[in-house]
């Protein structure tokens, strides 16, 4: 047993030990403890000495018990790290060492336990372990492998992911040379050799996209990075990553290919293709559309709407169509519209517009296709006008053949009938009467043939050259020719046509036309008044309209309107009415692409409006 004084002195010494230390008796009671021990293990306000060992030293005690006769060893098996949770619930780690305690006679009287808090160290260790795990996980997920070259030992390290990328097994040991051999001959191998060289010599990092052939012969795209590492300014190696981007690269290639295919397709379609956003701005255009808009570069067209290229009216219509498609979400197919550009040129397009709808059902624009049908349209119009010309000519022909047949028949029928009488007639004076009639019938036939010839002439010479003629000059000529006729009938002509009026006509026709209408007006004058004929003119589009108004008998147009310009149609009981004048006049006017209309009131007078076509 220890003496009191000696104990207290030893106690004092023990208290000041720098490390947390406890002296434990063979009966497991703490005999001495340093102040630090007391602080750490929260013995502050309690008597430490003589108390049994606390829970925290269970392990030390267990060890001691297992090795009762131990001696001081160097194998550090008497060391360990224990976890301890303090009264506040904080987790702490302690490294302890247990040593035998001897008295003066070298008798074992207990043990010395020295502890040191290693909580911080333990935490760092576990954090490091976690980080390593995390890194491994990360490289695996990202398919990004690590490589490290130790220049001092000339060894190359590949992590498992790097090995997987190269498709070698986990035991594979790479070298710089075998590593380079994986790269594809040509660009990839040259590049990696060059960057390795410049990294080693000049300390330059790199980041390259290269191709390699794996151990299994597969082609892969990788991004390889590397940078030199230095220790005290001395180059000691390289570190870097491998990233497998084959899938990415393949899909990128596919997308590029598809894009190219699509672009080639839309650029070479004989259509204008465009995509518009909700504001009708063009966000995609093909080459035809760019060229149609008058540009070379699509950037001159993109982002602009139709108001930039067409006149307001066209652009407005196009915008209305766009809105209709985007609001109703229904495609507009085959809309035919004449597009007028800002410079006035016109193009007829057949356009289809289809709404572009997102997965969520929201419309975000439209795609349009336009085909230029201007030429087709023009052909169609030409065809239509050709059909009109043909059918009108056909009608004229049928009319004419009826006229011919009717008029010739009426004379030949008479001739045949009279000849029939002549052969059987006995009476001499009757015979002479018949011969006289035969002569009349024959003269009539000749005259009819002459008239028909005239009509045929007019209709076959439709290509007679039209010339600009001063209208009043011609009127004066006709007036002069009809001078005697006008005086005999007390007729007066009022000419309201300006001297400036010039019409485009066949010169020989205008004489007949004017003469025919003027003599007609006087022939069918009213018995109650002297004839007054008024001439006037006005311009309407391509026509110069010459109006000839008289104060004569007038015609009941309801009864005779359809026969007015017919051949050998007469409406008045006038001896010299032959019914040929208006028929020929009408043919002449029509041969010059003109037309004629009539207004009349019985007893008041008649107005003929002659439309002279000023175009050739």
């Amino acid at each position, binding site marked *: 047993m220890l003496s009191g004084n000696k104990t207290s002195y030893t106690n004092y010494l023990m208290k000041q030990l720098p490390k947390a230390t406890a002296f434990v008796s063979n009966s497991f009671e703490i005999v001495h403890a340093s102040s630090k021990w007391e602080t750490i293990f929260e013995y502050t306000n309690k008597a430490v000495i003589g108390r049994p060992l606390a829970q925290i030293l269970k392990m030390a005690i267990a060890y001691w018990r297992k090795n009762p006769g131990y001696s001081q060893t160097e194998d550090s098996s008497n060391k360990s790290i224990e976890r301890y949770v303090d009264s506040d619930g904080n987790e702490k780690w302690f490294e302890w060492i247990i040593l035998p305690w001897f008295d003066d006679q070298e008798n074992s009287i207990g043990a010395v336990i020295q502890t040191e808090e290693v909580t911080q160290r333990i935490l760092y260790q576990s954090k490091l372990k976690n980080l390593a795990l995390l890194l491994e996980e990360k490289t695996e997920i990202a398919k990004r492998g690590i490589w490290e070259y130790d220049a001092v030992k000339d060894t190359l390290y590949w992590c498992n992911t790097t090995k997987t990328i190269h498709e070698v097994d986990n035991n594979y040991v790479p070298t710089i040379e075998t590593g380079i051999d994986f790269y594809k001959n040509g660009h990839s191998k040259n590049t990696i050799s060059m960057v390795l060289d410049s990294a080693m010599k000049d300390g330059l990092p790199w980041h390259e996209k290269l191709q390699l052939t794996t151990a299994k012969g597969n082609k892969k795209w990788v991004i390889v990075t590397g940078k030199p590492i230095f220790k005290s300014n001395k180059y000691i190696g390289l570190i870097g990553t491998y990233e497998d981007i084959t899938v990415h690269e393949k899909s990128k290639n596919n997308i590029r290919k598809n894009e190219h295919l699509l672009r080639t397709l839309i650029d070479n379609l004989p259509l204008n293709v465009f995509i518009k956003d909700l504001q009708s701005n063009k966000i995609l255009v093909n080459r035809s559309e760019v060229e149609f808009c008058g540009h070379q570069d699509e950037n001159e067209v993109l982002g602009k709407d139709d108001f930039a290229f067409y006149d307001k009216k066209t652009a407005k219509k196009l915008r209305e169509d766009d809105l209709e498609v985007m609001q109703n979400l229904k495609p507009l197919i085959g809309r035919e519209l004449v597009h007028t550009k800002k410079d006035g040129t016109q193009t007829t397009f057949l356009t289809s517009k289809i709404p572009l709808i997102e997965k969520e059902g929201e419309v975000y624009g439209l795609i349009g296709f336009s085909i230029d049908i201007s030429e087709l349209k023009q052909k169609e119009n030409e065809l239509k006008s050709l059909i009109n010309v043909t059918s009108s000519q056909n009608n004229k022909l049928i009319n004419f053949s*009826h006229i011919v*047949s*009717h*008029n010739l*028949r*009426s004379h030949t*029928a*008479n001739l*045949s*009938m*009279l000849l*029939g*009488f002549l052969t059987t007639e006995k009476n001499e004076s009757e015979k002479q009467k018949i011969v006289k*009639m035969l002569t*009349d*019938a024959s003269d009539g036939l000749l005259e009819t043939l002459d008239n028909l010839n005239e009509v045929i002439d007019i209709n076959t010479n439709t290509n007679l050259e039209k010339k600009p003629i001063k209208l009043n000059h011609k009127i004066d000529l006709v007036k002069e020719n009809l001078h005697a006729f006008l005086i005999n009938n007390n007729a007066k002509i009022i000419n309201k046509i300006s001297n400036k009026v010039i019409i485009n006509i066949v010169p020989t026709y205008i004489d007949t036309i004017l003469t025919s209408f003027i003599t007609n007006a006087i022939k069918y004058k009213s018995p109650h008044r002297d004839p007054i004929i008024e001439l006037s003119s006005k311009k309407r589009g391509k026509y110069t309209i010459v109006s000839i108004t008289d104060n004569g008998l007038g015609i009941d147009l309801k*009864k005779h309107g359809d*026969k007015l310009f017919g051949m*050998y*149609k*007469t*409406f*008045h*009981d006038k001896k010299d*009415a032959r*019914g040929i004048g208006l028929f020929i006049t009408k043919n002449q006017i029509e041969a010059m692409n003109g037309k004629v209309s009539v207004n009349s009131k019985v007893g008041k007078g008649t107005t003929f409006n002659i439309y002279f076509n000023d175009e050739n």
Partner: protein
Amino acid sequence: MTKINHIYIIDDDPITVFGIRKMIDSVVQFDVITTHGNGKLAIEGIKNLQKENQKLPEVIFLDLNMPIMDGWQFLEEFISLPIKTKIQINIVTSSIDGIDKRKWELYNSKTHHNVTFNHKPVGKKEIIEIIKSS
């Protein structure tokens, strides 16, 4: 030979009128032949006969193409007159236009009068046929 009281010839061509008259003379017995140069004069003549309660013509020879009032206009007005007896109307024309033929069919179906369609020249045989059927 049947005797006809009154025959009308409506035609503006004097030769045709002469021919028809001459043939009628040789094949038909009749009291009167009246000639008119157009439809208007003819219809006025018929209206006058009605007014004066005289006998209407039993046979009419009608040209189509005439001034002032043509054959169709005459026919249109004639069939609208209140005439109870059946009158033989013979269209005599040089027209071979199908439209005229269709018009004739239309008028023939519209009236109780007997309307025939003949091309010029008409011969004696036809005149006899016409008179017979009247």
